C-alpha cells in the first residue's frame, strides 16, 4: 500500500459520498429508494481493500470476511422473507366479490 494509493482512495471515498448524497435527491419511488445505498457499498469496499488490506494477509482473513457477509445475507434475506410476503393472504371475506358501485 503506497501513500499515493491511499490518497486516491480517500478522494474516491469523498466523491462516492457526494454521489450518494446527490442520489438521495432523486425522486425515486419508495420501493427503489434503498438502492441509494449503492455508492455506500462501493465506499465500504474501498475501506476494506485499502485501509483494512483485506486482499493481503492470510487467506482466512478473506474467508472470515466472506462468512460475515454470507451470514448477514441469510439473516436479512430469510428474516425479511416473512414481512415481505405476509399480507398476501387476506381473510376470506376480503375475497368476496366487491359490491358493485363501491
Amino acid at each position, binding site marked *: 500500500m503506497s501513500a499515493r494509493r491511499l490518497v486516491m482512495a480517500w478522494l474516491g471515498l469523498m466523491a462516492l459520498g457526494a454521489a450518494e448524497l446527490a442520489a438521495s435527491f432523486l425522486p425515486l*419511488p*419508495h420501493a427503489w429508494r434503498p438502492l441509494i445505498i449503492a455508492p455506500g457499498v462501493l465506499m465500504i469496499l474501498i475501506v476494506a481493500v485499502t485501509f483494512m488490506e483485506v486482499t493481503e494477509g492470510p487467506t482466512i482473513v478473506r474467508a472470515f470476511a466472506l462468512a460475515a457477509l454470507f451470514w448477514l445475507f441469510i439473516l436479512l434475506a430469510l428474516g425479511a422473507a416473512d414481512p415481505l410476503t405476509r*399480507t398476501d*393472504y*387476506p*381473510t*376470506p*371475506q*376480503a*375475497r*368476496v*366479490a*366487491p*359490491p*358493485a*358501485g*363501491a
Partner: protein
Amino acid sequence: MMLSLPRASENAAEVDHLLWALLIISAAVLALVMALLLRYIVKYRASSEFDRGAEAQKSWRFESAWTAATLLIFLGLFVWGARLYVRLFDPPRDALTIYVIGKQWMWKVEHIGGQREINSLHVPVGRAILLVMTSEDVIHDFSVPAFRVKHDVLPDRYETLWFTPTRVGTYRLYCTQFCGVDHAKMHGEVVVMSPPAFERWLAQNGGAGDLAREGRAVFLRFGCGGCHVGTAGEGSATVPAPSLAGLYGSPVPLAGGGVVVADERYLHDSIVDPGREVVAGYEPIMPSFAGQIGEEDIVKLVAYIKSLAPGERP
C-alpha cells in the same frame, strides 16, 4: 386416565393420518438403528471369537444412495405436512365468523349476533367456523387439541383460524403461548352443538342485540360520523374522510400506490394506526385511536362497517 384424544374435526382426522405415518416411519428408523446396534454390540464384542475377516470397504455409492433415499422420504413428509397446513390458510367462503379476543388471562368470544361468552366457545357441528382473533395485551395462542389446530393471537392485528367440527361434544381449549402469571388458568371449552341446539343457544343468549347494532353505538360515541359523513354521491368537496358504506370487501387504492382489500385486518389497522394505509385522495389527518378504544369495541365497529350496504348512511 385419558390416553386417546377425540377427533372432532375434519382436520383432526387428516392430521392424525400424518401423525400415524410419522409414527410408523419413526418406529421403523428406530427399530433399524436399535437392531443394528444390538446385533453389532453382541456379535462384535471384544470377547467374541467371531471372525471379522477383511475390514468392510467403505462405499461412496452406498453412502450417497441411502442419503438420497432419506432425503426422498423427508421430501414426502414435507409435502404431506405442507398440503394440510396450506389449507389452514384457506377457509371456505361461507364460514361462520366468530370473534375471539385474548387478554390476560381469559378468552372473550363475540358472535355476530351479539352473543358473548368467556372461556367458552359454542359452535354448530358440520359448519366451517372462522375465528378472527386478536389480543388486548401479550401474545396468546388459541389451541383446541381435539381439532388439531392452534394459532397465536397477537396484539394489534387479526389472526385467523378455521375448522369444521364433526362431532357434538365438549372439547378443551387452551392458551398455549406463555402469557404471564396465570397462563395455566387461561383455558376453557369448545362446545360443539347440533345446529338446532346451537340456534336455541343463540336465541337464549342473544338479548344484547346484534354486534353491528352495538357497533353503531360505538361509532356514534367516538364521533366517527363527524368525518366519515359521505354516503355515495352526497358528500361535498370538503368531506374530510372517505365513506365507509360498502367499504368492506372492496379494493382500496392507497396514497402510497398499490391497492389493498378492505378486510378485517385493514379496518382494524385503520382504526388503531390510520397513517399506515391512507386512502388515495385523502389527507392523513385521522388520529390514531390506539389506546382509546378497546379491542371489543373495535370488533363491534368492524361488524358495523361490514353490515353497511353500499350507499347506506352511517
